């Protein structure tokens, strides 16, 4: 019941909520990014980051440091925070936190399967996987030749199994199929996650409904953008859109029909929440779109900390930390490749 979670929320989740708010106050601010932008070498960046929450993770790294190491250590910080909270979490919150990581799990599965298709070494692929999306049998993914095997040999024991069994086909794995598999899995995952959040009720349902609607609309937009000019039919494209979100159902019909960027734009602009984003975008520049969407997401995540007694903060913290890692990676790459003029283009400021 709305409002009454104030009285019972803290019984199980009060401690973790304040922990996650503590982690949030450790996120890099504009001032930190300004300092990072002044750096001349990657060692300077490391020095700057040691004065932040990342300090303990970076301080013992040997001197010729690489972007990959910095990103890995920053991800390690997120993973450690997350696992600490996950082990403390009581039921409902624990399931919620698991749901948050299924997205990474899907990405990992797709990464391994694609890598195997290109005959990469499994160990090398495993190193690239996101640590939050790991599961026990992930290394055996490489043996699967088609989707049915993939499901029966490996994924049946993972939490992804229900999403998979809905969309099982006999087709062999190829580039196109894998991409479709990723998106059907994501669709089923987001539908399921949204239904779970609604079942929690209260402020969690309200806030997560908003954030997941944005997430799914962004995916619908990206699917449409990427499928223009491919052999994906309109019906198949429409099957990949989730069954909720601000675009559902009329926007999805229009997106399914869209043939070029301007048609997508007119479909998206009919939703007031997105017309603001597209009005910042000049005609003909679709490159900026990604950054604008990331900014919108960050804004939603930061806003969600304004309310207390709900689970959205955990999801938002993960998204913010991931955005921060992308920022750090961008800054480090710019510094490493001597492109300091472009640093400001890629950073999405959190606060």
């Amino acid at each position: 019941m709305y409002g009454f979670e104030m009285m019972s929320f803290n019984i199980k989740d009060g401690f973790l909520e304040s922990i996650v708010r503590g982690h949030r106050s450790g996120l890099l601010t504009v001032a930190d990014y300004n300092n990072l932008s002044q750096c001349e070498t990657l060692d300077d960046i490391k020095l700057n980051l040691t004065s932040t929450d990342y300090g303990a993770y970076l301080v013992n790294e040997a001197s010729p440091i690489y972007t990959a190491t910095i990103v890995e250590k920053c991800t390690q910080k997120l993973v450690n925070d997350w696992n600490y909270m996950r082990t403390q979490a009581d039921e409902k919150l624990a399931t919620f936190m698991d749901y948050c990581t299924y997205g990474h799990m899907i990405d990992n599965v797709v990464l391994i399967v694609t890598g195997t298709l290109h005959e990469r070494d499994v160990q090398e692929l495993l190193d690239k996987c996101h640590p939050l999306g790991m599961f026990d049998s992930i290394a055996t993914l490489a043996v699967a030749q088609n989707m049915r095997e993939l499901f029966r040999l490996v994924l049946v024991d993972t939490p992804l199994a229900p999403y998979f069994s809905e969309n099982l086909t006999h087709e062999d794995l190829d580039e196109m199929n894998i991409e479709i598999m990723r998106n059907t899995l994501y669709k089923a995952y987001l539908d399921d996650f949204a239904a779970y959040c609604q079942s929690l009720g209260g402020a969690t349902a309200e806030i997560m409904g908003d954030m997941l609607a944005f997430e799914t609309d962004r995916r619908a937009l990206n699917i449409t953008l990427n499928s223009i000019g491919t052999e994906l039919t309109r019906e198949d494209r429409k099957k990949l859109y989730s069954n909720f979100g601000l675009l559902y159902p009329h926007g999805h019909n229009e997106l399914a029909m869209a043939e070029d960027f301007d048609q997508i734009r007119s479909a998206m602009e009919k939703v007031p929440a997105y017309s603001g984003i597209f009005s910042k975008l000049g005609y003909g520049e679709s490159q900026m779109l990604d950054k604008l969407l990331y900014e919108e997401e960050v804004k939603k995540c930061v806003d969600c900390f304004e309310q207390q007694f709900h689970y959205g903060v955990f999801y938002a913290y993960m998204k913010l930390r991931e955005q921060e890692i992308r920022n750090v990676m961008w800054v480090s790459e710019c510094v490493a490749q001597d492109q300091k003029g472009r640093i400001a283009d890629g950073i999405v400021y959190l606060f």
Partner: protein
Amino acid sequence: MKDLTHPLVWFYIPVTLTWICFCISVGNPAKFIDYDWLWLLFRSMSPYFWSALGVALAVGMSILGAAWGIFITGSSLVGAAIRVPRITSKNLISVIFCEATAIYGVIVAIILQTKIEYVQPVDGVWDRYAMLSGYAIFGSGVTCGFANLVCGMCVGIVGSSCALSDAQNSTLFVKILVVEIFGSALGLFGVIIGIIMSGAVTWSGAK
């Protein structure tokens, strides 16, 4: 079962059950409500029962509210203090405010119980002053108890937000403390009315 805060659990089911029991069990089944029977029932009830219930509710409800507030504040405070240890001693004030509601309850309970005197029923009928005293103590206890119950929850929720916001920005502490003080004052209203109500107590009719 849905969670305990669902209105089905805390409102509709108890009210329906109570109504059914009431209709079935009270007095003459030919009448919907047998007022004669009810009058007999309430007249024969000992005023000491009402007095004891009043004292119990005053202290019990207040302590329930205080405990509820303290765990709401406390769990947030403990979590937030891991990263920002400076907030602990300042935010103990929130816990103390919750504690105060329990103290209000104890004070009123002590006042009420000192008012209880010994009288005897005459031919099984209680004197009307004794009845008045019993109901006065009961009402006073209920007023104080429920006022302090909700006051404790209110202070607890504000105190939890206070701890979290103090951890982010220490200038917010004093501002939220003002809100908390006003929340804490709510319990005092219950105490004042409770004490005024218990002023009517005269067991033997002699002022």
